[in-house]
């Protein structure tokens, strides 16, 4: 699945042992993916490889993080891996939706790659439909977290210090009070599947998600990436943390081209 970029003498490929894998779920508003774009762009991460997979819709373009003419011509595809060894961080970016019936296979292959590359933990950035919140969730912060039992032991205390809110379980049958509570992440794409599989396979995974709706999701991405930064401290959080993140050049024209002058 993982194909390393050719890097000269390193025939074994990059080593991710002990690294934190940061990745998005393709979810409502694409917030996770936008947040990952901000991380890769701001930390100027180096591409170390890609996923050769038939589970995602194909796409290709030139370098989405280009800053100048010289670095704008590197091809970029739908699932790529970037790394920053100084922070022991490896990032997977997913740029297209899943092909019908292939998301389960992708999750299985991904988790087995996580185990074989010996990543210490996985942090999944995701989002959930804002309109599905219950009365209590409508108040207070729209940000939530989830930890697998193995990671709970390691960092559960830190989440309490940060005063973070854990994602609530909801009744399996709404309206009936004495039913089992289950995890429900509407609009979260593969978030719930990855999380439940990680729990049963003993993988240390954290999910960070934001309630949001479709629309201009750049502010949502900034909120989510700042939330991540409170914990992982990827950049120094100054007075105005949102201005510290570098918007990639590919975010231009998100809402269409310029207007024809003949319109006026």
């Amino acid at each position: 699945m993982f194909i390393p970029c050719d890097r000269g003498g390193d025939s074994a490929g990059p080593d991710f042992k002990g690294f934190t894998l940061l990745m998005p779920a393709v979810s409502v508003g694409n917030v996770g993916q936008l947040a990952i774009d901000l991380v890769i762009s701001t930390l100027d991460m180096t591409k170390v490889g890609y996923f050769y997979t038939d589970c995602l819709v194909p796409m290709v373009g030139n370098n989405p993080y280009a800053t100048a003419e010289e670095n704008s011509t590197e091809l970029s595809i739908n699932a790529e891996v970037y790394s920053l060894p100084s922070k022991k961080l490896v990032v997977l970016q997913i740029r297209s939706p899943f092909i019908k019936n292939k998301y389960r296979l992708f999750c299985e292959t991904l988790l087995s790659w996580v185990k074989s590359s010996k990543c210490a933990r996985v942090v999944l950035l995701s989002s959930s439909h804002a309109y599905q919140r219950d009365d209590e969730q409508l108040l207070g912060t729209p940000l939530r977290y989830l930890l697998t039992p193995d990671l709970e032991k390691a960092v559960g205390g830190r989440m309490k210090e940060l005063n973070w809110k854990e994602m609530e379980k909801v009744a399996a049958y709404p309206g009936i009070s004495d039913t089992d509570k289950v995890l429900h992440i509407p609009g979260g794409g593969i978030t719930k599947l990855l999380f439940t599989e990680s729990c049963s396979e003993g993988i240390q995974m954290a999910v960070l998600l934001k309630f949001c709706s479709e629309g201009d999701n750049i502010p949502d991405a900034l909120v989510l990436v700042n939330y991540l930064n409170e914990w992982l401290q990827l950049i120094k959080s100054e007075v105005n943390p949102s201005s510290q993140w570098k918007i990639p050049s590919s975010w231009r024209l998100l809402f269409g081209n310029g207007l024809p002058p003949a319109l006026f």
Partner: protein
Amino acid sequence: MATFFGEVVVAPSRAGLDEEEEAREETPEDREIRREIEKKREIDVLWTWQAGGRAQEPLVCSRFIVAIGRNAAAFLSSFILDSVCWEVVGVVKLWNEWCRTSSTTNVLPTDSFCLFYRLISDPTVLLCQCSCYVAEDQQFQWLEKVFGSMQKKGLQVTILSTCPVADYKTQESTLTLASPFLKALKTKEFQEQVCCPLLEQPNIVRDLPAA
């Protein structure tokens, strides 16, 4: 969500994952139906020189030109292909909701087809005209089966395709843009001069050309 006129509309999510599909467990009948559909959607690559139509050894190929879509296929028909210099060597047989191709090599320009031609004077030059639509779930299969039949060392691949001007993202309006125009994407291994400007972000390429 409520629209301007007051009716409630379910907005499609960019998550791309159908909620009901995710929640429902697959029954044995579902699995059987899915397997049957997958079999029906399988792609067959048939090469003409092999008895029975199945390629046995990898095809030695130095240049492979692929024209995807009706416009690109028509370009090759009008300017490159002729029965004197080129011979048909293969065909792709596939079915999806948009089109069906057959194993016949005698096609009309209005048909959906996917044919392979070889230059008679240099049999390592291969050309593919793919006017049919290859669905998302078939693109990877097409790729593996076509490229799986050829020896890829020293192979140069050129992909020709077209996109509507309205899809092109640019600062000015596409109404004032001089069209048609050419843009290119190339791998870093491609060292030759490209005949036109490179495709700028945020524009991307999808479907079979991307695959």
